[in-house]
């Protein structure tokens, strides 16, 4: 049985800006601020709801930052869970159509 894929989508309730290597994200619901480093930024930019997290990690993280797949995937899941807890990302086991908000 194939492992379930994870799809991540940026929340519409955020404001976001890239300064230098960092991406700064603010929740417009409670003004909480998150600062993503370059690896976090790579995952964030791939969070289009259509690309599986495993593909984002493989293409954006492993290739660009020279880390192994298992290690990168474990860190990415932790990162995604953290942002999802704060409503910055939404997580789905199915691809999300453009404009569809979970």
């Amino acid at each position: 049985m194939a492992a379930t894929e994870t799809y991540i989508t940026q929340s519409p309730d955020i404001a976001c800006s890239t300064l230098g290597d960092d991406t700064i994200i603010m929740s417009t619901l409670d003004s909480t601020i998150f600062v993503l480093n370059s690896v976090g930024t790579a995952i964030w930019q791939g969070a289009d709801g259509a690309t599986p997290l495993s593909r984002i990690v493989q293409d954006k993280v492993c290739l660009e930052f020279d880390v192994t797949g298992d290690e990168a995937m474990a860190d990415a899941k932790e990162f995604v869970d953290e942002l999802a807890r704060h409503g910055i990302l939404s997580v789905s086991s199915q691809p999300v159509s453009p404009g569809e908000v979970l």
Partner: protein
Amino acid sequence: MLFPKSEEAHNVVIEIGGLPIEVQTTDAGFERILRGRYRGYINAGAAPEFALRVQLTQPETFDADRDAEVWVEDREWRMERGDFRARWSPAQREGQVFQSANPYSIDSVLRIVHTLMLASQGGFLVHASSAVRNGKAFLFSGVSEAGKTTIARLAPSDVTLLTDETSYVRKVDWRYFAYGTPFAGEFGEPGANVSAPIAALYLLKKADENRIDALEPSVAVRRLLRNILFFAHQADMVRQVFESACAFVAAVPVFQLSFFPDQRVWDLIR
């Protein structure tokens, strides 16, 4: 003109940050309060962008414990606090304020209106003292007790103070300018009514020595946002303020200024 002709108007045009607002009242005593509070910022010759009609009421009309709230209703901004109630329609270019005859309520209404106006233009009000030296403006920001007024008090004679408490930042043609404000802190005196391009923002920290340290942009944005005044919590307003702070940090050098409270700190500010 909002008042019927039977009532005598005692109107005052207050121009802060290049934005003239006519405060309309029929009370001569309140007009005197306004002229005293906003001396240096009265511009009778300016064409007002809009008018605020002040309706004086008794203090007990309000719920004294109510914190400031700002929201949109029927396409108008509504503002309420324990000492005033106000509405402002940008489209109609007019508003109305209910308050008692004191300078603090109208001062708060003006601050809120200016933050709303500035937000759509990439500017903001920020808890900071500011000053002009050699044609350049410098902002000194921090929370209460960080040293905003102390820095202002230590300024040498070639420095023009814009405010010791609330700085006015406007974006004009992709450059940021600081304007003098009458919004005073412990000084109790309005700042000079002048403006200059902003050369740097210093985030204050009291220390045993004077030192300037560069800040990571993300740290600068976080700390700047803590000090920007914003009262409205609608998502689009929050987004505008956030984007304004990020754009400001991308364009203006932001440092941490650790300082020992004596005049030598100004040797670093040029």
